[in-house]
């Protein structure tokens, strides 16, 4: 690739990010879309809400699994959405007898999940409910993590599970264990492999970008909802570009 095309690609990338940001902010000014009304309903998250209410009613626990997002990797993005969703889920379950329990498979996510738990309880003035041991790093390799989180599913009086983060196929072990115990499982990941596995194993799988929409559907705030709108706008733009590019090639055009 020549230097001018590299420069052009870099500028195009920056313009893409800037436009994405502009659409997100424009949404805040014009109209914040409401999940379920302006945005299509997601069955998995609707059922998760129902499962949470039943969990609180029955005096049992919600288990949130944040996966193995690495700090220097794009996988961390879905972990960040998981953390935001966790904040909302703590608010929804804090009135229950047993607090939400979180498991993570990497150091940074472990630290951030503790911080998020603490912060969520503090926001609602329930500091006394915060226990550092409710956020655990259960293992540092994929299968060790699955084995440790599996122990939480089995021994912590869990009634509902929400897996949202970077997983590999080992997530099937967790979902299968939870399903065998009659626990509810909603799950999403950024990995295509994990999504394929979850489609077969999880009661309510989140496919594709639905995992990134989870926090917005749990009421995480305006910018989460407008970023879904920006994703939709740019998805249509990408579709138009791909179809246009294919037609351009079809008629014999080349750049």
């Amino acid at each position, binding site marked *: 690739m020549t230097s001018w095309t590299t420069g052009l690609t870099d500028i195009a990338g920056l313009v893409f990010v800037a436009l994405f940001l502009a659409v997100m902010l424009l949404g805040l000014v014009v109209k914040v879309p409401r999940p379920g009304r302006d945005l299509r309903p997601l069955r998995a998250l609707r059922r998760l809400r129902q499962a949470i209410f039943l969990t609180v009613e029955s005096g049992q626990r919600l288990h949130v699994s944040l996966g193995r997002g690495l700090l220097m990797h794009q996988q961390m993005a879905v972990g*960040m*959405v998981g953390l935001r969703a966790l904040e909302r889920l703590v608010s929804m379950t804090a009135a229950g007898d047993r607090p939400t329990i979180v498991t993570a498979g*990497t*150091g*940074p996510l472990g630290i*951030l999940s503790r911080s998020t738990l603490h912060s969520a309880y503090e926001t609602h003035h329930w500091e006394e409910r915060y226990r550092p041991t409710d956020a655990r790093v259960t293992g540092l390799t994929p299968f060790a993590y699955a084995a440790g989180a599996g122990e939480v599913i089995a021994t912590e009086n869990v009634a509902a599970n929400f897996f949202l983060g970077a997983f590999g196929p080992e997530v099937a072990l967790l979902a299968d264990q939870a*399903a065998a115990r009659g626990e509810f499982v909603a799950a999403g990941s950024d990995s295509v492999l994990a999504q394929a596995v979850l489609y077969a194993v999880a009661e309510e799988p989140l496919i594709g970008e639905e995992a990134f929409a989870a926090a917005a559907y749990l009421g995480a705030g305006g910018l989460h909802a407008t970023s879904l709108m*920006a*994703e939709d706008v*740019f998805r249509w733009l990408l579709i138009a570009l791909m179809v246009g590019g294919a037609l351009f090639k079809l008629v014999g055009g080349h750049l």
Partner: protein
Amino acid sequence: MKAPVSTAVAIGVGGVILLGYFLPVPYLANLRLLLLQWAVFLAAAALFVAALNLSQHHWARLTNRHEAGTSGLLLIALWGSFVLGLVYPLHSAAVRGLFRFLILPIGVALLGVLTVSLIYAALQMMRRRPGLFSVLFLTTAMLILLGATALPGIGPIPFLSDTLRPWLAQVPAAAGARGILLGVALGTVATGLRILLGSDRPYGE
């Protein structure tokens, strides 16, 4: 505002790294590299904190005599392998032996369990979620698996192995996977921008 210093640091560092990635300015590129090196050190420190967190949980179980044997064994394995890695070089027989005779067999065993779990889950799926998509999912999985196997005396199954399986894998499956990955990429951009705007702040007080 929650955690103003942490928020300012996250926005500043994120902004520098984003601009350093796109703009061909040597100073920005060097600064970006330096910040990423710091992040590597932080990630290593976080790994150590995670090991301590894991130990804290199992130590509590050990002292409370709740499945103390298992927790004791896990603590010995964790810190034993840590000390082994400190004392011996990475390519030494001791460290290689640890991987070869302990970690690898356990991983393979769990992979075996995973295979059984997945087969069972695939069978359960039709009962749990009957419908066109489940049928399509299972049929495709079966065709891909059959296309990858060779029958005794026949070899690869004609048409399935050389035509249908490659077409399924390279056209509808690859198209679907790319569509999903485009959605994931857009979600990742949105998440990054929310952090840059200070909307998502998982770093507490």
